[in-house]
């Protein structure tokens, strides 16, 4: 993987930055402390994990549509804990598939794509800094992340295979080997998440320090581009939430291997303790995976609407409110778990409140488009789709926030639809938009717009065909995490819907192919990218594509806010942050 990023090295870097010593191959591409290279390392690693997580999902969907049918082509190659001798997925193996699908997608795909890739690549470039505050920790963070991925995925090769108690790993199923039957896999899961947590903490500390200390002159907090604000707030969430998961994973490991009883139902243990610890991390985690995407999308929409972000400060405050409220809503995952009923009422209240800042953000995105001059680039298409998908995911969340309705649809496919509208239609569409938008800056070449739009159209259509009908399945009472819905009377009539969803899911999987081809082809053969292909105002577009080592030839000075588009009295329809406004410009305060 390290070799594939060789071409990232910009020739001009050394012309401009003669004072930087020539680095050895090892220090340039493997243990690199350059934030851009680390961002690329995260990008390639997490795209690789995206393929793995996607393939696991294909396995899940195959089983649900065609239970007990041998997996075509590869069935006989799969290990015996996963498939029957005939090659059909068996129920225990199915549990492993969806457990690993979610674990991989959450910890090895969405988090690193949003935070590892865009956090590392964009923060120093956008605030006018030469690198991160702690480059060494930054490199450490990536390699810990990669190690965590290897540890988690290595469970494929151990006896009894993947952990199989869900990505939520509720105790005591997860904490007793004789209940779950996957002691090795579950132990690796704990160790992997612990290492992953260390990577997140190292990264978060770095982002916070960098943003507070290393902003260019004139870059006040309220002149920060929204992706930087989003990542700043996210870093606080990571710093406060992830240690709780790490601690919980360590306790689970002890329960599982050393006979402690933290989460046991006897000997003073408490199964609900695991759920409280997990969701105290797990709900901020939802926003950890959402806020950076919101930041990226806000910027892509502003640039491509040629307008300032509508209500910039409201956007910042809304993210702050989401982050704060995000810490006091975890109990809404536990309305039916046996928690005190009055407590449920309280968590329902805070959950209703957290919908307000989400609504504010949606209205502001619509306000940004209003009166704009909208350019439909591929990045913009993904960003615009993000808003609509986020609206669906947000509105379906209201069903679960109302405790009585939650009783009925909790743990059904309704919630599977909800989470995928937020994480796939939301976060992942945001990531795709971000990749199409910043690709020229990352690799110095343009991606193909036509194939980008093919990718968008296929992803958008098949995403909705896959996940929208899941709402209906859930309303019909289809439980999640069951290997064979045809075992139930009330679900047998639903099987055609499951088949439709699975075929759409396979098509959704295939829709990644034009993206991957476009991505790798453009990296080598795409047309050379100019400094500022999108006529954007923020600082990363004032340096060459790709930027050299050290980023800025001389530290830029910032004169105004990040989104001064279509300012009256300025000839061009954008006013870069590092250029003083001409006398004629009539800049409004925001």
């Amino acid at each position: 993987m390290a070799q594939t990023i060789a071409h990232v090295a910009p020739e001009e870097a050394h012309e401009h930055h003669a004072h930087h010593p020539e680095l050895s191959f090892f220090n340039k591409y493997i243990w690199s402390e350059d934030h851009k290279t680390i961002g690329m390392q995260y990008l390639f690693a997490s795209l690789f994990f995206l393929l793995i997580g996607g393939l696991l999902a294909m396995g899940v969907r195959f089983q649900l549509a065609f239970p007990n049918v041998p997996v075509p082509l590869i069935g006989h190659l799969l290990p015996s804990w996963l498939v029957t001798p005939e090659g059909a997925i068996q129920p225990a193996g199915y549990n492993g598939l969806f457990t690993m699908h979610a674990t991989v997608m959450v910890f090895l795909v969405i988090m690193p794509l949003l935070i590892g890739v865009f956090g590392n690549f964009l923060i120093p470039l956008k605030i006018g800094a030469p690198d991160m505050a702690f480059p060494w920790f930054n490199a450490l963070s990536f390699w810990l992340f990669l190690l965590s991925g290897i540890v988690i995925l290595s469970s494929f090769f151990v006896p009894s295979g993947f952990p199989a108690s869900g990505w939520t790993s509720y105790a005591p199923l997860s904490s007793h080997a004789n209940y779950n039957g996957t002691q090795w896999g579950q132990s690796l899961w704990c160790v992997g998440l612990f290492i992953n947590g260390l990577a997140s903490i190292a990264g978060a500390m770095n982002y916070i320090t960098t943003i507070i200390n290393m902003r260019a002159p004139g870059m006040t907090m309220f002149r920060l581009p929204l992706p930087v604000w989003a990542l700043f707030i996210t870093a606080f969430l990571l710093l406060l939430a992830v240690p709780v998961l790490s601690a919980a994973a360590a306790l689970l490991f002890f329960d599982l291997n050393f006979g402690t009883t933290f989460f046991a139902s006897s000997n003073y243990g408490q199964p609900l303790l695991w759920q409280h610890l997990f969701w105290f991390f797990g709900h901020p985690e939802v926003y950890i995976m959402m806020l950076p995407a919101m930041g990226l999308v806000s910027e892509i929409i502003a640039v491509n609407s040629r307008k300032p972000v509508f209500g910039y400060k409201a956007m910042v405050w809304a993210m702050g409110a989401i982050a704060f409220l995000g810490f006091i809503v975890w109990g809404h995952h536990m309305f039916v778990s046996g928690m005190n009923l009055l407590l449920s009422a309280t968590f329902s209240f805070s959950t209703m409140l957290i919908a307000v800042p989400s609504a504010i953000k949606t209205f502001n995105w619509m306000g940004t488009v209003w009166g704009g001059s909208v350019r439909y680039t591929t990045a913009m298409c993904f960003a615009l789709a993000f808003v609509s998908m986020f609206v669906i995911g947000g509105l379906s969340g209201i069903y679960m926030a109302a405790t009585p309705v939650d009783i009925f649809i909790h743990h059904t496919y309704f919630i599977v639809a909800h989470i995928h509208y937020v994480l796939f239609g939301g976060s992942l569409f945001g990531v795709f938009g971000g990749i199409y938008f910043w690709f020229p800056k990352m690799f110095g070449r343009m991606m193909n717009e036509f194939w980008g739009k093919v990718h968008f159209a296929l992803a958008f259509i098949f995403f909705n065909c896959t996940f929208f009908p899941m709402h209906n399945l859930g309303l019909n009472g289809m439980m999640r995490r069951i290997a064979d819905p045809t075992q139930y009377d009330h679900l047998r009539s639903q099987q055609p819907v499951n088949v439709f969803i699975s075929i759409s899911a396979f098509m959704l999987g295939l829709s990644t192919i034009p993206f991957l081809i476009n991505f790798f082809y453009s990296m080598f053969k795409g047309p050379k990218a100019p400094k500022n292909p999108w006529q954007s105002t923020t600082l990363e577009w004032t340096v060459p594509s790709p930027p050299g080592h050290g980023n800025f030839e001389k530290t830029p000075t910032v004169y105004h806010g990040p989104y001064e588009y279509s300012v009256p009295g300025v000839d061009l329809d954008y006013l870069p942050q590092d250029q003083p406004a001409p006398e004629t410009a009539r800049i409004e305060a925001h």
Partner: protein
Amino acid sequence: MKWFKNRWVFLAVTLLFFLGLSLSAHAAPRTSNLWWVPDVASAHGKQIDQLMYFIYYLTGGVFVLTQVVYIYFLVKYRSRKGIKAIYSHGNNRLEFVWTIIPTLIFLGLWGYSNHLWLNVIHTDPPEDAMEIGTLAYQFGFSFQYPGPSGKLGRSDPKLISNENIFGNDPSDPLTKQNFQSGVLELPVNKPIQIRLNSRDVIHAFYIPEFRVYQDIIPGRTINWVWFIPTKIGSYQLACNQLCGSGHYNMKAQVQVVSQQDFDKWYKEKVAPPANNPAPPARTK
């Protein structure tokens, strides 16, 4: 430019298609049960459905409204030669309005749903409610019915063993009359209180037609679930909390019958006391 226009028309059509899908699904005859909730078969389930419909129309309305405005903006404000975007950083009055209105709506919704939660669903069960014990284990359910008093007597999850699977307290005479069943047989229109215990991991008590769901926690007794079945018929109780390799098939038959049929079944059951097969012993 024309190509862009068509694309957004296409997007609008797609969105309307999905919306139509859910609306027409709502209008479809319930007997098909392919797209909408199964017919409700419990007393409080009707109120849950009312709240759900309220949220459905609320969110549906918000969705249509926002998407229509959004798509209108996207078409109207597409980039055109010679037309510059409007320069605006926002509008504080608008921000205020679209903060206050959702806040009020969400607070109202919370009031409505919380009233239902505390005052309807989780009130104390009526005095004459029949208690039924449910034991969940990897991977099945067993039920325990009370004697003529309708009450199960004291139990303690610490007493659960292979011999005493429901953890009955032998010092309470009421427990002596209890008997066991593999089927959840219920008389129609009678309040039923369920006492939930688990022998190993967390399971769940989920009957979609009754709009009932509760996790079953090992080491604890949960006794706040109660409901009144209102429709004669057979249903399935499903475990809805991942509990291991056999989770996908962990279920039990639920029979709602008339009072006469129930009395008949009950008499037959009481006559030869507790000759039902116990669940397989726990292997450790």
